[in-house]
């Protein structure tokens, strides 16, 4: 570790920023009126999450998070927003009954979050006696993907292929040019 | 497949040819004239706004205020006035106003002039932010003029 005392503090700050970005981004993602801002919030959430992964000693995952989620998923969603333009109207959010429902949903979700968090914290996790020999690097991951998890890897590629074909089929079906 | 590859190759060659040409131009001399620092000479027949021809002997205008130019002008931008002075055969000009904002530089006035009293100036630097710069008084201009 570093000898300079400020380092730990700085890293803590960076971690806090990541956490804040993740949670804040998620809140923007689900609560903003305009869907396009929601997508931006999602992107922010993912970037924050990348930071979190970095602190979890998974830099490759952090970069993949940005590459796949921000670079592909968010952009695809924005693209869909452009095509379908689903700006939510403000009016149907403000009626009295919907406010009640919103409050109920909020309470339920907070309770859920609380419950899950306390379960997770209160659970008795077995700490392993000794870590495995591999270091969790990209190399180790590649080897694992092609040996231990080769079946899952194949299935995932199949799923992706089917998803691409399915998406093409579904999207093409609606596109009948006269 | 072979055809497609051939097309790809010939297309690529055409791109390289284009790049070769522009690169050759890259090392050639500039063709522009850096205007405020150097200026081109106006050709003999350049049609600027009109000015009076100065009589070689008297140094005065040849204009006889016949108003042909006023009539010939398609844009009505010339106003001429003259008086007949004592002891002179012809009228002489007292007022010759050119409204250059309306002039289309067609040269009708110069062509129609019976005594060839008008010529084109070589003045092309006519940019201004004020409109009254273009109300050119030819008589005054000749009197103030250097030659």
């Amino acid at each position, binding site marked *: 570790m570093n000898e300079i005392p400020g380092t730990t503090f700085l890293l803590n700050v960076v971690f806090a920023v990541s956490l804040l970005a993740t949670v804040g981004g998620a809140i923007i993602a689900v609560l903003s009126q305009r869907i*396009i*801002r929601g997508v931006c919030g999602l992107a922010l959430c993912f970037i924050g999450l990348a930071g979190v992964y970095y602190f979890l000693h998974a830099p*490759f995952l952090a970069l993949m998070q940005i590459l796949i989620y921000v670079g592909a998923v968010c952009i695809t969603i*924005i*693209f869909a927003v452009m095509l379908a333009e689903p700006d939510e109207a403000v009016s149907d959010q403000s009626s009295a009954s919907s406010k009640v429902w919103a409050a109920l949903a909020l309470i339920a979700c907070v309770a859920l979050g609380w419950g899950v968090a306390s379960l997770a914290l209160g659970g008795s996790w077995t700490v392993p006696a000794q870590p495995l020999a591999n270091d969790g690097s990209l190399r180790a991951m590649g080897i694992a993907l092609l040996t231990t998890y080769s079946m899952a890897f194949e299935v995932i590629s199949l799923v992706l292929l089917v998803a691409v074909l399915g998406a093409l089929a579904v999207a093409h079906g609606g596109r009948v040019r006269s | 497949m072979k055809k497609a590859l051939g097309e790809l190759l010939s297309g690529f060659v055409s791109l390289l040819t284009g790049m070769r*040409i522009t690169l050759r131009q890259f090392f050639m001399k500039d063709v522009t004239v850096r205007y405020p620092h150097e200026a081109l000479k106006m050709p003999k027949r350049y049609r600027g706004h009109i000015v009076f021809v100065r009589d070689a002997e008297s140094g005065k205008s040849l204009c006889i205020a016949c108003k042909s130019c006023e009539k010939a002008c398609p844009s009505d931008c010339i106003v001429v006035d003259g008086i007949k002075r004592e002891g002179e055969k012809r009228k002489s000009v007292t007022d010759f106003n050119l409204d250059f904002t309306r002039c289309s530089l067609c040269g009708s006035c110069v062509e129609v002039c019976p005594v060839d009293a008008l010529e084109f100036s070589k003045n092309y630097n006519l940019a201004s932010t004020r409109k009254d710069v273009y109300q050119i008084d030819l008589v005054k201009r000749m009197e103030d003029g250097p030659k």
Partner: protein
Amino acid sequence: MSFLAFNLLEPWPEPFRLFLYLAGVMAFVGANAAYLVWVERKGAARFQRRPGPTEVGPAGLLQPIADAIKLMSKQVHVPPDSDRILFRLAPVMVMSPGLMCLATIPFSDTIGARNLDLGLVMVFAFGSINVMAIMLGGWASRNKYAIISSARIVSQNVAYEIPMLLVVITMLMITGTTNLHTIVEQQAGGFWHWNILKVWANPLMPVTFLIFFTCMLAETNRAPFDMAEAESELVAGAFTEYAGMGFGVFFMAEYANILVGCSLATVLFFGGWQSPIGVFSGVVWFLVKLYLLIFTVIWIRWTFPRTQFYRLLNLSWKILIPISLGTLMLTCVMLKIF
């Protein structure tokens, strides 16, 4: 400067290094973005046999500063119907990938902001943010031209990311590492060791480079692939509504991205800081290669007309992706044989 900050600061604690290299990279990107505009204008002028900027400073060298002052003094106008937050966020976002990506580029053996094991992945991860920024800018403007342009940017970038990543995977198979520093070290000892001439690993290596270069042009929205701001079609595309420094930042980001792309090409294909004769390697060689590539980018821009949008996509899907897949396969086979 960033490249002074490496060995000198090795014993220094991480946060200070972090801060210093950030400042260095920012200065480098800023200076380059500003002066590449000058280079571009001078280059364009030469190709068109004009003098280019001459009035501000000797040979117009102060022109970028004059431009910046002019842009900054302009009103920052946000169109009334636009999405204000996103409209202002986009120019900020668009600069960040250039800065992040450059942090991992090794300029020489000792000069480099950060030697990351995942350098190559990082460049692509942060490079993808750029698309989102331009797209958001276009969308937030609420201008029809800008929205068309946004849609184009997305399709274009998605289409060209695929062959680019395929090429990069080919490179990964040859180099066996994502550490850019190591990749350059592998290419030491003369130009015949550079990856572009590694024909025993893949006889189509120059073609691979061409694909990479084409994709880089498309990803950075450079002519002949500048669909995003095709001025004769979409006025200024996604940047139509931006005035003053907002536009200036987009403009600079384009050059920052070119800088990153050309740096990456230098590192991957041209042996980074390695000298072509095997001795006297150093940062000079990196810069020479980098700026030659940038010059080529400018040269291409001032030579060709713009492609059509669907031809651009066809080029990617029908030509570049099959060929890059082919080179990938070929590399697999070649690496297995030898």
